[in-house]
């Protein structure tokens, strides 16, 4: 017939078949397994879990496989799955002081109780392509580190609690445990808790750029990396019938606390301010970006001028979600010919009117 965009059913089916073929690639090569993705692309999995909003490594790995490695698409898949899950209960707030730490660094003290634990990191790695990885090796037990060289995970005092002891930073009381389940808010201004939850789901690239902009003067907030830690936390659920909490599992999280420029409120001594970020898995860049933006979004609390995009709550929170952003940008691919026709009619009417002038 006359319109290419019509007659959709067959076209859609064929398009999906093509995509499935593309995803599989050359069938002479082994198909990549979910376990391989989970184990060997673990940071990709961490990002998909963090922004997808479900802690499930296998699901995230499946999403990455299905999305041909497109992270934003994989995040979307996980979110769409999450929609179908009922909210059954809320766990007790995490206390990251109880974290079994794998990695913990602080940039503000040379040494501190427990010491600096570098853990696994790309830091200090010379970014030279390792051509030896091009050769596929058989599974073996030979790792650069022997099991007995790995330190047991342990609990460390939080750097901020050391600052709080000296009154150099204010302790932050989490709000009273609310009866309301934490959901993403729909109205500005967000509470800080809602804001942090929204930032954790927000696009890492978007947050990274905004965090960077604060370092270049668009809302400067003088950050120091007070502490960055990655490790395992137990999730506890208070069972109403039992009257006490039970551990329902363990998750890996990364927490970043920034020490930011000090303030001197009236009636109070000068103290540092702080920014906080939490991500699932070992998404460290994300946690740092969140912490920087968390602080920049506190500008109004400290009477600071709001002149950088990263300080503008509505701007940051309304545009950070990559599922929303990718969807709305991509919707321009949908037919808009009715609206375009309306515009054509209008522009022709205007041109005709001009001719007669």
């Amino acid at each position, binding site marked *: 017939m006359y319109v290419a965009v019509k007659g959709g059913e067959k076209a859609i089916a064929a398009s999906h078949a093509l995509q499935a073929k593309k995803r599989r690639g050359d069938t002479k090569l082994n198909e990549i397994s979910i376990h391989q993705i989970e184990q060997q692309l673990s940071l990709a999995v961490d990002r998909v879990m963090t922004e997808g909003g479900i802690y499930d490594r296998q699901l995230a790995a499946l999403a990455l496989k299905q999305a041909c490695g497109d992270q934003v698409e994989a995040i979307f898949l996980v979110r769409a799955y999450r929609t179908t899950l009922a909210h059954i209960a809320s766990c007790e707030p995490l206390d990251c002081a109880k974290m079994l730490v794998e990695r913990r660094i602080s940039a503000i003290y040379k040494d501190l109780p427990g010491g600096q634990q570098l853990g696994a990191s790309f830091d200090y790695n010379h970014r030279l392509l390792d051509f030896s990885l091009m050769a596929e090796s058989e599974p073996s037990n030979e790792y650069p580190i022997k099991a007995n060289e790995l330190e047991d995970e342990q609990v460390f005092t939080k750097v901020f609690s050391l600052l709080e002891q000296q009154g150099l930073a204010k302790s932050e009381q989490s709000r009273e445990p609310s*009866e*309301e*389940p934490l959901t993403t808010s729909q*109205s500005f201004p967000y509470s800080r808790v809602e804001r942090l939850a929204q930032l954790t789901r927000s696009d890492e690239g978007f947050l990274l750029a905004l965090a960077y902009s604060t370092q270049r003067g668009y809302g400067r907030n003088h950050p120091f990396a007070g502490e960055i830690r990655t490790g395992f936390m137990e999730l506890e659920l208070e069972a109403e019938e039992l009257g006490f909490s039970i551990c329902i599992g363990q998750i890996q999280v990364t927490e970043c606390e920034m020490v930011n420029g000090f303030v001197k409120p009236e009636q109070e001594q000068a103290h540092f301010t702080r920014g906080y970020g939490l991500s699932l898995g070992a998404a460290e860049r994300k946690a740092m970006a969140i912490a920087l933006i968390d602080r920049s979004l506190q500008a109004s609390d400290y009477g600071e001028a709001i002149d950088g995009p990263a300080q503008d709550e509505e701007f940051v929170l309304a545009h950070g979600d990559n599922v929303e952003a990718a969807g709305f940008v991509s919707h321009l691919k949908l037919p808009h010919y009715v609206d375009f026709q309306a515009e054509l009619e209008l522009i022709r009417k205007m041109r005709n009117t001009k001719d007669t002038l």
Partner: protein
Amino acid sequence: MTIQSGFSQPVLDSQACFRQVLAALSEPGSVNTLGLHIGFEPLAASVCQIVLSLCDNHTQLFVDPSSLMESQSTLDNVIENIKFHTDTKISDKSRADFVITSASSPFVAEDYKSGTEMYPEDSATILLETNSFEGGTLLQLSGPGIEHTRQVRLGHIHSSLLDALIQPAYKYPLGQDFIFCCGEQIVAISRTTKVEISACM
């Protein structure tokens, strides 16, 4: 204390009830029927079905003890059943999203949430048990959902409630929405509905 069964098909029955409530509120004054559950005695079947289909752990419910229940144990039994099936929170009047009360009791609009200029939706939906849609003052309704006018009787309702319908305590968009319930039947009056005593009897 007895826990009675809820909807026999919770997903489909909730949907069907919602559509009846939707029709009722879309066309104020129209009589709609909720016939999928017998209700938790002594509450009307329609009241229970509205609660079962719309309330959950994100909503707060106030059940007016003075006007509805014969005894404390009856009240407890009803509330336990509602909580068991919906996990809804029982609250005081001033915070309730849904209110169950009797149309023949004195009504004080100020007792319940009526929204704010910024959030007019933060208001109570009031479920009123009444005795009939055939008896009582003949009322004439107009406004959204009604092409011209619609006539309705709401049974024996307290004069303070009738006054509140005719002269709402709050200026639109603030206000409360009413669902009158008699057995399996419901009639809704929205905050946009203009209520007058009908001239022709």
